[in-house]
Structure formats: structure tokens, C-alpha cells
């Protein structure tokens, strides 16, 4: 019996060619124009700046997209993503606090860890509110309470911003709009380790995620410890979202739409879908960032604006054509 579920070879080939091509193009784009920077000192500086942004985009995009993929699988809902569930909002609040009050105590890992801590608290609050009545919460109540908690978090952020001094306000607002300017090297290293580890662990859970898409009861009947798998993948997905938020701010859209497109292209088997989503999300964000910084120099458009404006229509076309290969509900 042939292994159906391995992605179509043509699509995989196209994907494998397109990804390095797009990544290469984005390295050539910048406010200084299209092309390889020369070998002068300023050229080297430009290249290193672009490489830094490239790396940030890759990590943040991969984390957001993988996180969205996992949330959609666990909650069996096409609308699930870090933002809808309030996880990004919580992480944002934690990160804003860390930026304004200073999370220096924890060193390089301070920002991502504070964000993760707040994201976890938010997720637990969302889960707690949604499961009023004891039983495991329905997807609808989860999303409803996610939206509620999310808006509470953003009010807190607004409050913090309005009471902060000018400099702090500037930093937080810029960060909130989505900004892939790399921070400290040690912070990047820590974030990268977190992201790569979390995606790796989630990939090991991919067969279990496939089973979970049939619902928790069916997963139980299939010999899965459904509670443990759900909990650990929710934690890992939250860690990914929090790390992404602490690195790049509130970049929407990637976690929601990239998983759908990848599912439309490669099918819903998470053994393939999860890596494809990570790579696709990273490439997408790198490309968007390249456009953001080179479209109208010297002004830099927030990358979150570009993800939505450029990605939206393009992905809508794909989804309209291919949605039936991804999600039937």
C-alpha cells in the first residue's frame, strides 16, 4: 500500500526550490536598494544588519506558524491561533512589563521567560474561565474567553504605555507594531534554543497530534494519553508564541494563515505539516520584512502591517482554491 499522506512530489519540489529563492531575494532587499552590498565597510555592515533581520524573521515566523498549527490541531478549530486564545496578548503584557520595569534580573532569557510566564498564566486563565462547570471546555467557550482575556491584556498594555515615560513608550509601541530589529545576541541565542527545541519536541508529538484531530475521546480509544499530550503540546505552543512575541512583538496573521496554506498544500498529516509550517512561516515573515524595509525608504513600515496587507490577498486566493484539501468543517 503506497504511503498516501506523504506530500505530492511536485509540490514538495516547488516548495524546496521556492524557499531558498525567496529567502535569497529577501537578503538582497533593503532600504539601500536591491542587490548585494559591496565589500566596503558600510556594505559589510548592511549585510550583517540584513542577516540579523533575516535570522529574526526566520525564527519568529517559524515559531508563530508552528504554534498556530498546533493550536489548530489541539482545539480542532480553524480559528485557533496564539492571538485568538489570548496567549499572545498575555505574552505581550509580560514583555511590555519586562521592557518598562526591566527584567534584567534574569539576564538574556528575561524577556522570553517573562513573556512565557505571562502567556502561561493567560492560557490557564482562559482555560479556567472556559471550563466553568467542570467538564473540559468546548472550543467555542475557549475562543470566547480567549478573546475576553486578550482584550483585558491589551488594556493593561495600553495603560502601561500611557503611564510610561517617552522613551519607554516609544520602545513599547514600536515593539508592539512588530519589529524584527535584533536585540542582544545572547537574547537571540536563548530564543533560538527555545524555538528550535520546542518545534523539535512538537514534531515528535506529530503522530499524536494527528490522532487528536479526531477528538479527545477518539484519541483515548486509540491508546493515547490524551490529557498529557494535550497539555504538553499546549505548553510548547505557548512557549513558541511567547518567545516569538518577546522577539518580534505583536505580529499577527502568520500564526493563523500560514498553517492553513501549508495544510492546503501538503495535507493535514502533522509529521509533514509541522516542519512545512515552520519553514513556510519563517520564509513568509523574512519576505514580508524585506518588503517592509525597502518599499518606501527611509521609512520602515511595521512588518505586521505588511504581513496582513501583502499576505492576505495572496493567501485568500490559495485558500479559496484549496481549502477543501485542508479543512472541511
Amino acid at each position, binding site marked *: 500500500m503506497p504511503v*498516501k499522506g506523504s506530500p505530492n512530489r511536485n509540490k514538495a519540489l516547488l516548495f524546496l526550490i521556492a524557499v531558498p529563492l525567496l529567502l535569497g531575494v529577501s537578503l538582497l532587499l533593503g532600504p539601500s536598494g536591491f542587490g548585494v552590498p559591496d565589500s566596503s565597510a558600510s556594505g559589510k555592515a548592511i549585510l550583517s544588519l540584513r542577516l540579523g533581520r533575516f535570522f529574526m524573521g526566520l525564527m519568529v515566523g517559524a515559531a508563530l506558524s508552528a504554534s498556530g498549527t498546533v493550536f489548530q490541531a489541539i482545539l480542532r478549530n480553524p480559528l485557533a491561533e496564539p492571538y485568538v486564545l489570548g496567549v499572545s496578548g498575555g505574552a505581550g503584557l509580560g514583555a511590555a512589563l519586562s521592557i518598562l520595569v526591566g527584567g534584567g534580573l534574569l539576564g538574556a532569557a528575561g524577556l522570553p521567560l517573562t513573556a512565557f510566564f505571562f502567556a502561561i498564566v493567560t492560557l490557564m486563565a482562559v482555560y479556567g474561565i472556559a471550563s466553568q462547570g*467542570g467538564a473540559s471546555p468546548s472550543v467555542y467557550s475557549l475562543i470566547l474567553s480567549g478573546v475576553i482575556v486578550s482584550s483585558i491584556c491589551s488594556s493593561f498594555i495600553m495603560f502601561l504605555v500611557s503611564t510610561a515615560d517617552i522613551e519607554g513608550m516609544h520602545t513599547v509601541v514600536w515593539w508592539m507594531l512588530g519589529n524584527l530589529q535584533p536585540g542582544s545576541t545572547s537574547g537571540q541565542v536563548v530564543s533560538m534554543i527555545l524555538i528550535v527545541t520546542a518545534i523539535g519536541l512538537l514534531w515528535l508529538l506529530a503522530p499524536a497530534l494527528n490522532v487528536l484531530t479526531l477528538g479527545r475521546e477518539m484519541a483515548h480509544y*486509540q*491508546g493515547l494519553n490524551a490529557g498529557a499530550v494535550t497539555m504538553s503540546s499546549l505548553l510548547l505552543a505557548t512557549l513558541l508564541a511567547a518567545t516569538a512575541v518577546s522577539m518580534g512583538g505583536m505580529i499577527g496573521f502568520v500564526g493563523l494563515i500560514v498553517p492553513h496554506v501549508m495544510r492546503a498544500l501538503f495535507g493535514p498529516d502533522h509529521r509533514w505539516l509541522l516542519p512545512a509550517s515552520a519553514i513556510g512561516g519563517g520564509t513568509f515573515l523574512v519576505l514580508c520584512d524585506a518588503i517592509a524595509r525597502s518599499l518606501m525608504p527611509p521609512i520602515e513600515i511595521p512588518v505586521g502591517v505588511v504581513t496582513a496587507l501583502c499576505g492576505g490577498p495572496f493567501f485568500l486566493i490559495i485558500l479559496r482554491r484549496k481549502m477543501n*484539501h485542508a*479543512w472541511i*468543517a
Partner: protein
Amino acid sequence: MKVPMTVPLNAPALAFKAVTAGYGKRPVLEGVDFAIEEGEFVSVIGPNGSGKSTMLKTATGLIHPSQGRVELFGREISSLKPRERATLIGVVPQKLESPMAFTVAEIVMIGRSGPRKRWGIPDAKDYDSAERAMIYTNVLDLKDRYFNELSAGEQQRAALAMALAQEPRIIMLDESIAHLDINHSQEVLRILMNINREEKITVLLVSHDLNLAAQIADRLLLIDGGRLVCNGSPGEVMQEELLSRVYGCDLRVQQDPYGGHPVVSGTLDALLRRPRVQKRLHVICGGGSGIELFRRLLIEGFEVTAGVLNRLDSDAEAARALDIPCVLEQPFSAVGSEACEQARLMVEQADGLIVGKVPFGSGNVVNLELAAEALRAGKPVWMASDISMRDYTSDRSAARMAGLLKSAGAVEWGGIQELMARLQQDVMKREA
């Protein structure tokens, strides 16, 4: 203590030992006790909400009993590792829902995720089992189709294939064929009987279709109100009296002329064969007291008229919905002379009059005059008892009227059951 890996010989496939289980603090099952031997085909029957699904969830370890033990092949179910459990039990749900676009082959392969090693890549044995399961259930041709695009019957066969791919020793079905067309449900049943006979897989079928259960099961477990009411062969369980009591309605059990198994049916056909009574009854009601009366009278085949009612009264609304001719007065107003006259004409056309359990006030007490008139014209009047309890007139005129009506020959009734019995009797008598 280390649990021995081998399953004790001769242990029942599934045993409930005085099991009480439910959700939270509310027990749904109470003291359920039975055993199913390996290779049996057992069906669990019972009315909606009797605890059938809870029993299945308890049997699969999804719910832990608060008292008692559930044993699977001699081993307490909660002592089994999840993967081990999945190689012993396969479950076919009411409806398998796969929101994402998995193909049939992928869905069936998910059935191998229990037996397979934890991080294992599927090997030849996994593919063999999946393929055999698909051949058995006749879905091999559909293997590359999306599960969601299949018809309900094909989906259930695919779900059965997934459960079979687990290579379980007992397979449980939760109302899995209830919503299928007869051709599809017959096909799934044939597959089930095959795997039961040929592969010696124990089958536990939860079903609310009594006839289907009686037709194919070796044994029936009848559950009612969370208790096991009867455990025996179809012939022993399918008793008219027992089933009528459990299901709370009149049922009749006959032998199937071809298979010889008992067949249960309702008594609607008897109702349908009853000649329609060519009688018209006028109903005095109001405030919702007439709705049940209307319904029962119409079922019994009477023509019904009603009034005088106020517009917007719930009985007036019901009468309109049921196409019952009705004399209406303005909302919240006393019954006027014009409406009274119309109602009088209506009562003249009727063969009898019923006074419902309506409260009387100064506005509607005039309606009792209609009853008096009917009696004077020699028509029978059935009057709800205890009118004096519902008399809200300032001068107790309703209670007084009721007394007069009674002495003039009105028959009193307490409950609707009683009224219907009296109606049958009186109408028959008049007929003769």
C-alpha cells in the same frame, strides 16, 4: 505488584462488578453488574438517557467508576497502559468527525497508532493490518478519498476499519449505525457478524433500535435509569410488559415470520385502524388549560371547537395553530354578548361540551352558561372537578354554577387520562 502481561484464561472479555459511575458527583450508572464472555455478540439497549453511553465510556476507561470494578479480560481497566488498552478495545463512535482533510487510508492508519511503537514509523505489519481492515469493511476502493467527502455509511465503515486496524479483541459501537439507511446499516451489521463469527472478536453494540439488537445479538442488556434491568437472550428480554414499562408506552412483541426473533412494535397501527369518531366537542378553556386537551382530543379523532377565549391567550394561540374553530374576545376584556351569541351557536353544532381546568373570574364565568345550555339541550357535559378551587369571582358564582351543572347531569373528571376513558365509554354508549 507487577501486573502479569498475559491475560488470564477464561476471564470474561468485559466484566462490570457492582459499578457505580457518572459525571462529577451525579451517578448515572448504579450498581451495574454483568459479564460478557469472549466471542459473544452483546447488545446494550435502553431508552434515551438511560445510561447506555455512560456505560460504554466506563467500559473503555474514559470514566472511572466511583464504586465497583471494570475488568477487561480479567484485568482492571485503569491498570492497563493506554496503548495496551487500545490493542484490547476498539471503539466505533456515533459519528467519527475529522475536521481536517485526512484520507480514508490515513484515518485507518491512525488505528495503528496504539499497537505501534511510540515513535515508530509504520512498518509492513501496520500496513498489512490497515489493508486487511479496509478489505473487511469494503473501503479499500475509497482509500485515497477524503474521509469527509464520504457518505455517512462509507464513513462508518471507514471508522470501523480504523477500529479493526487496532486488532482489538473486543469492539464496541456506540449507536454507530442508528443514523444509517437500512442498506448501509445492514452492510455494517453483516461486517460485524463476520468479524464476530470468523475472527472471534467480541462485539458490544449499544443501540436504541430494539429490533436490530434482538435480530443479531446473542444476548441483550436492558438498561433503565442507570440500572441493569434485564440481562438475557433476546427472547427473555423482549417481553411486552417489561419493555412497555421501561419505555413508558404501549408496545407489542411478536415473532418475526422469517428469522423467528422477537420484533417489537408500537401500537400506533391500532390507533390508525380506529375509525374516526364523527363527533364534535366544544371546549371551554383558557390560560393554557386547553392545549393538552386539544391535542388529545384531536388524536382521538374528535372535531374540536373552543371558546370564548381572549385573543393572545395561550389556548387561543394553540387553537389557531391546530386549526380549531374558536370564538375570540378582545384581549383582557370580559366576554361580551356578541361573542357569547357566537359561542352559543357553536355549542348548538357540537355533540358535547368539555370544561377544562381553567380559572374563572368575572370576565369568563359566562362560559359556564354555555355548559348549562348544552345540558338543557340534552348534550353531555364533562366538567373538570374542583371548579370552586379555581373560582376567582367576587361572589363565588363559578362554584355555584358548577354545583348547578353537576346536579343537572354534568360528569366530573380529574385527570386527562380519566376524561379520555369517560369519553370513550360515553361516546360508545351513545353510539350503541
